């Protein structure tokens, strides 16, 4: 009787010690599962910076961070050798973006072309996430209000004719570490400075990036103006470029058929044709500064 029970008891002893060791691992797994259900993990770094090429990406500047941006567009290659294939011409936008919260960014800028001042906001309505909240996309609303101060003949009588408003919705998704895509429907109320035929424009943009290394990506962007809102003589803007990130800087170098650098200008007033060689070299430089104590003391995620 004793002899029969002995091995069973011995096994039990071994098993109980064994299960205890196993228990710790199981328990940690259980904690991991529980906490995964309770935490929201937001998708980070869908794009390198707040602009894709000409237009906005779903990214906003982090709270308390100032992003100083200098955008530059050369003239078209088609302007010929006398103009050093566009390099003699230059058009600059200087802008400042600032992150107020983790979902709201505001910015101001001035573009030499059309002497335009712009004021923008970018609000993240939805954020791509996993865990407690499973959200497949990030959705941003970007209104850009611009004042065109260009002197024209005959002179603009009403100040309100110089105002424009571009409303852009961005629906973006980071599909993988390397691939991010976005769709950008836009509704633009134009200013009257260049006497447009249509006072508004409806367009749909598509764009994306593919990372080719940790610090480099290839980007492309296209905005299609819906017929019936496209002014005669204007074209749809297509751009292709490279992002290079080095620490606090992001350099964006691209080829594009527009000279515009505010949403209204490049979506609705582009005149260059890729087929005619109306392609200009452009670059954006972004440099971020942590300016507020907020950015230093609170988690920004």
């Amino acid at each position, binding site marked *: 009787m*004793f*002899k029969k*029970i*002995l091995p069973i*008891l*011995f096994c*039990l*002893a071994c098993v*109980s*010690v064994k299960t*205890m*060791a196993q*228990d*710790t*691992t199981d*328990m*940690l797994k259980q*904690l*991991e599962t*529980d*906490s995964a259900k309770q*935490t929201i*993990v937001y998708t*980070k*770094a869908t794009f390198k910076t707040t602009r894709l090429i000409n237009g906005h990406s779903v990214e906003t500047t*982090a*709270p308390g*961070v100032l992003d100083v941006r200098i955008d530059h567009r050369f003239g078209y290659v088609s302007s010929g050798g006398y103009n050093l294939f566009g390099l003699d011409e230059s058009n600059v936008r200087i802008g400042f973006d600032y992150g107020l919260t983790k979902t709201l960014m505001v910015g101001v800028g001035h573009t030499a072309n059309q002497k335009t001042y712009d004021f923008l906001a970018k609000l993240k309505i939805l954020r791509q996430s996993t865990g407690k909240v499973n959200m497949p996309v990030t959705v941003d609303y970007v209104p850009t209000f611009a004042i065109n101060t260009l002197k024209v003949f005959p002179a603009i009588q009403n100040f309100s004719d110089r105002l424009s408003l571009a409303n852009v919705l961005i629906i973006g998704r980071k599909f*993988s*570490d390397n691939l991010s895509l976005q769709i950008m429907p836009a509704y633009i109320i134009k200013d009257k400075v260049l006497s447009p035929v249509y006072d508004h424009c409806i367009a749909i943009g598509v764009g994306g990036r593919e990372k080719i290394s*940790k*610090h480099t990506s290839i980007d492309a962007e296209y905005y299609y103006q819906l017929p019936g809102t496209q002014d005669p003589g204007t074209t749809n803007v297509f751009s292709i470029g490279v992002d290079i990130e*080095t*620490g*606090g800087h992001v350099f964006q170098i691209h080829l594009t058929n527009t000279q515009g650098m505010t949403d209204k200008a490049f979506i609705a007033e582009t005149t260059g044709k890729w087929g005619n060689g109306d392609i200009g070299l452009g670059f954006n430089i972004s440099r*971020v500064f*942590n300016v507020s104590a907020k*950015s*230093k*003391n609170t*988690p*920004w*995620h």
Partner: protein
Amino acid sequence: MKKSIVLIVCIVLSAHSFAQKFYTKNGLVSFYSKATVEDITADNNEVLSVINTATGDMQFSLLNTGFHFKKALMEEHFNEDYMESDKYPKSTFKGKITNLSAINFTKDGIYNTAVTGDLTMHGVTNTITTNGIITIKNGAVSATSKFKIKLTDYKIVIPSVVKNNIAETIDITVSCNYPNKL
């Protein structure tokens, strides 16, 4: 014969009755990198940990995205470039207290401990041994430890451009209170 049965029964029973596990969901793991250009610190206070006082098992698990930095860009680079958090979301430690007999979990006191185990991060597992302190106060358990890790041991590559910004050896601090008992 009878004696041995009694002994085994005792082992079985004692193993069960002392099978106490302490756990936390809010442990703290911090790291500190001291380099010529800048010092970098980050905290993760959502660390999961379990101590089994019967077996001496000590395990930790954390999400790399749970580390928070002073600068947003540092946090982005940490996850995107160095830890590759999309590919390797978790870092874990599975070890054992090697001087378990020296610690009386039922008696208040400050106990020096030695722990050996496997630290897994960035897809690489290394065995590490470190010293720490386990404090028992009114039956509550807390544990702290400090150790160093070399980034190259975990195949974390720092580009030459930022060699002066990020140290090769990182100081890790672990500090956990275990409020929950099971």
